[in-house]
């Protein structure tokens, strides 16, 4: 096994690629994502998107920063998304968070809590943890799906689709879905996420 510090520092860019993949899927499927081991959800980028290549950073702030011409331009310049404010809808529950790709961390999380200051403090805590863990389970499932695609034979085709998408060329959602389904069906059991 590798040294822990190597594991942490090595290939941090894979986190950025996972965010790129979320952005790609969100745009291709009009925000409707289907993680293989979690319930379907809606996910889109809102208000903040930071892209980077080495020390060259671009921060886009608007209602829908990922749909601005500058966002795709940054991708064409070789930048990858470093962090993004995401909105996630699970059933009738709506979450918001800042996804930091280098550490796969969620920050500034907005949870759809129903309990408040007037309620019993332990119940408030349990509700928050339940909601946070529900949100994390979705990201865990999405990460597993992404990793299977990134490490599998489907990756060159995925890269071709990403490039076409970044250059405003058509990408067939059906062809992508078929590619993804094949990749997920072929993955080793250990790469499949555990059902929660």
């Amino acid at each position, binding site marked *: 096994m590798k040294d822990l510090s190597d594991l942490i520092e090595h290939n941090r860019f894979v986190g*950025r690629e996972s965010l790129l993949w979320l952005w790609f899927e969100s745009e291709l499927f009009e925000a409707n994502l289907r993680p293989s081991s979690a319930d379907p959800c809606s996910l889109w980028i809102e208000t903040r998107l930071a892209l980077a290549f080495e020390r060259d950073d671009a921060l886009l702030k608007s209602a829908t920063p990922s749909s601005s011409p500058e966002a795709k331009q940054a991708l064409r310049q070789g930048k990858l998304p470093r962090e993004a404010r995401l909105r996630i809808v699970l059933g009738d529950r709506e979450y918001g968070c800042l996804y930091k790709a280098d550490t796969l961390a969620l920050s500034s999380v907005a949870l759809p809590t129903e309990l408040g200051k007037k309620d019993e403090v332990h119940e408030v805590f349990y509700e928050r943890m339940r909601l946070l863990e529900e949100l994390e389970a979705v990201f865990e499932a999405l990460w597993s799906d992404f990793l299977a695609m990134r490490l599998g034979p489907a990756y060159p085709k995925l890269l071709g689709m990403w490039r076409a998408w970044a250059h405003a060329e058509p990408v067939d959602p059906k062809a992508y879905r078929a590619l993804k389904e094949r990749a997920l069906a072929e993955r080793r059991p250990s790469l499949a996420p555990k059902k929660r």
Partner: protein
Amino acid sequence: MRIGVDLPEGFPAAAMKRIRANVFEPLSPDDDANDGHGWCSMLDPMDLELDHEKVFFNEYVCLGLRIDRWFVPKPLLEAQLREAEASLLAKKGLDKLGKVARADLKLMVLKKLRRQLVPVTKSIDLVWSLDSHVVHFFSQSPKMHLLAQELFEKTLRYRLVPEAPGTAAERRGLSAEERKLFDSLEQTTLAREEDAR
């Protein structure tokens, strides 16, 4: 952050003992240290009498990382130091203080001023789910993360693994071949040659 081991039987009692041994100790104005940290109740940072009920919430271990720091405003410190220095020079009939004497005087003035102040208190929640082995630390500051990680590992003697693409991939149980592939990945670029022209 995650913990990669299962817990032994009798863990809560042993953990409580170690948590109590690393509880926050209030700062004293006479200490040389400018800050201190330790565990407190997650629900009340001023509560340092930790017991099972205050720490174990069903499957969660809940702690507050309390960090206290003396904050003496610089202009106030400088004014008081000038005054003390002038008084000492007059008393000793000197023109100037040496470096060491000035540093000693500064510490003395600092300690005197601390007695008139209260330290600035900060508390950050740490929640460890014993079911999922995930430790949530509710701060984004790398410095605070390091502090929490060190104290957690010292207190509970379990190594924390910070979340990162590499550790999250490892957690999936990559085969040797997949690990080799992961290590050899090159960063994706969506730029095409014609984009550079």
